[in-house]
């Protein structure tokens, strides 16, 4: 399913002294089956943007196309539930939304809201709990007896069990330990590859964005600052550093080589293997 934002603007608390322009002039498109990373400082409007992807927020100007539906500023929309089923959002700190007596019931909650029968939902719960790397024994426990990391995984399983076509992730690994972080990111990537789920990831980690994403969108002060493939985005690392954003270590290393030793590269390297090859090539060219 393709999601397109056309000239979207969003203001919080319109007509109050707290009115706040959170998004403006946003034009982006996320194609079926792609992996998009959204990067930007805190307060740049990433979470606000995400909530437009399943019509939790309606633009105050412009249009959002979600599959064959159109969400337009100033027009009442009915029957949004099908959109919510197709576009699953894992919010920041999703463990805060757990509420049911058992992990199983909590995971079944989403699917059953969308009309799945109890038996099928239990099936989905079992599948989802395995996907997030937890054992089935946990299903009978209370979600409030789990560790922070386990709660996070259960909450993610609750969204996966809805079997969305598009998965939207708002900093899903914030506050996790490095290992848990990698496991979860790899899990999402595998799911994306295996089942063709379109994935949209908000992250602060340039490494993750460079490693997993087909497209990167850089948000700055409520609008799109730059968008493109990782190659395009990181071809001008200084621009990103000026904004106070990070670049992958490999790109930083290239920049350093270029500045201090005058080594020239044709393209940014996003992993160590590629970097080694390129350095080797540069040395052979002997342009140092």
């Amino acid at each position, binding site marked *: 399913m393709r999601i397109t934002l056309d000239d979207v603007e969003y203001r*919080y*608390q319109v*007509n*109050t*002294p*707290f009115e706040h322009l959170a998004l403006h002039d946003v034009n982006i498109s996320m194609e079926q089956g792609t992996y998009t990373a959204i990067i930007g400082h805190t307060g740049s409007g990433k979470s606000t943007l995400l*909530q437009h992807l*399943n019509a*939790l927020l309606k633009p105050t100007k412009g249009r959002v196309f979600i599959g064959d539906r159109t969400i337009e500023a100033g027009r009442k929309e009915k029957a949004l*539930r099908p959109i*919510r*089923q197709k576009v*699953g*959002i894992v*919010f920041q700190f*999703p463990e*805060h*939304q*757990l*509420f*049911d007596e058992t992990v199983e019931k909590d995971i079944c*909650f*989403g699917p059953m*809201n*969308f009309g799945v029968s109890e038996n099928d939902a239990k099936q989905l719960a079992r599948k989802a709990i395995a996907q997030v790397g937890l054992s089935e024994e946990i299903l009978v426990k209370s979600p*409030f007896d789990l560790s922070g990391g386990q709660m996070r995984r259960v909450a993610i399983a*609750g*969204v996966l069990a*809805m079997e969305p076509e598009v998965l939207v992730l708002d900093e899903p690994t914030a506050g996790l330990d490095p290992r848990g972080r990698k496991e979860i990111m790899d899990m999402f990537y595998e799911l994306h590859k295996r089942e063709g789920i379109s994935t949209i990831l908000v992250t602060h980690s340039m490494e993750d964005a460079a490693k997993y994403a087909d497209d990167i969108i850089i948000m700055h002060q409520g609008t799109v600052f730059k968008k493109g493939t990782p190659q395009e985005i990181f071809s001008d690392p200084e621009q990103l550093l000026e904004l106070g954003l990070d670049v992958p270590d490999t790109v930083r290393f290239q920049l350093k080589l270029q500045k201090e030793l005058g080594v020239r590269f044709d393209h940014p390297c996003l992993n160590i293997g590629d970097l080694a090859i390129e350095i080797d090539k540069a040395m052979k060219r002997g342009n140092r």
Partner: protein
Amino acid sequence: MLDKMIIGRYVPANSLLHRMDPRAKLLLVFLFVCVVFLANNFVSYGLLAVFTILLISVSKIPLRYLYNGLKPIFFLIVFTFLLHILFTKEGELLFEYGWFAIYKGGLIQGLFISIRFTLLILVTSLLTLTTTPISITDGMEELLGPLKKWKMPVHELALMMSIALRFIPTLMEETEKIMKAQTARGVDFSSGPIKERVKSIVPLLVPLFVSSFKRAEELATAMESRGYRGGEGRTKYRQLNWKTSDSLLMVSLGLLTVMLVLLRS
């Protein structure tokens, strides 16, 4: 969703009303609430309305914001109005249709009560809109200070109040966040059959309770680790100072009271 609520909200600005001593504003609200009950005819209600409008105009709170904030309370006002029309059978009969009858007394009573209600809400909202929770608490503590002699836990009460006020916006924010998260999981909070909607409260309330308890515990730990021991011997960083304008406000309120007493019919 809950953006429009103005109860307990502070709007930063630098108006005359903002700069006033919180004690003066608290006294104003308290006395106004009493004085309102003196009014019993159109002229005195008009006078109260003018006084309220003057207060609003010096507060620099945008009218549209006040209006939007009061919208959720309108139905309560309309409801009381209708109750009076239906059940007060006094004075001239104005209109009759079967069992349904409107009497002049009921109409006037209904009007007066609605005006009173609106004015009370406006004035109390003005207090919280122009005063930070912390100054309200400081003012409260000072005003109730004398009661300490009779072993009233004034400081503790003030602290409880300031914590409650402080966390209203946080709770609202949290409510909105969890509502959004559950909406994304297919809950429909705004439409559908009543039975479904009542059921949808559980996935909202449980997380709210859990996080509130957690927050209370964290706050207690933070206070204890910073050596909080209650009000005993505690000095104040923020000093209140009573200015001429505060005295003038009290005088004007006094004048209002005198006029209301004279206007009583």
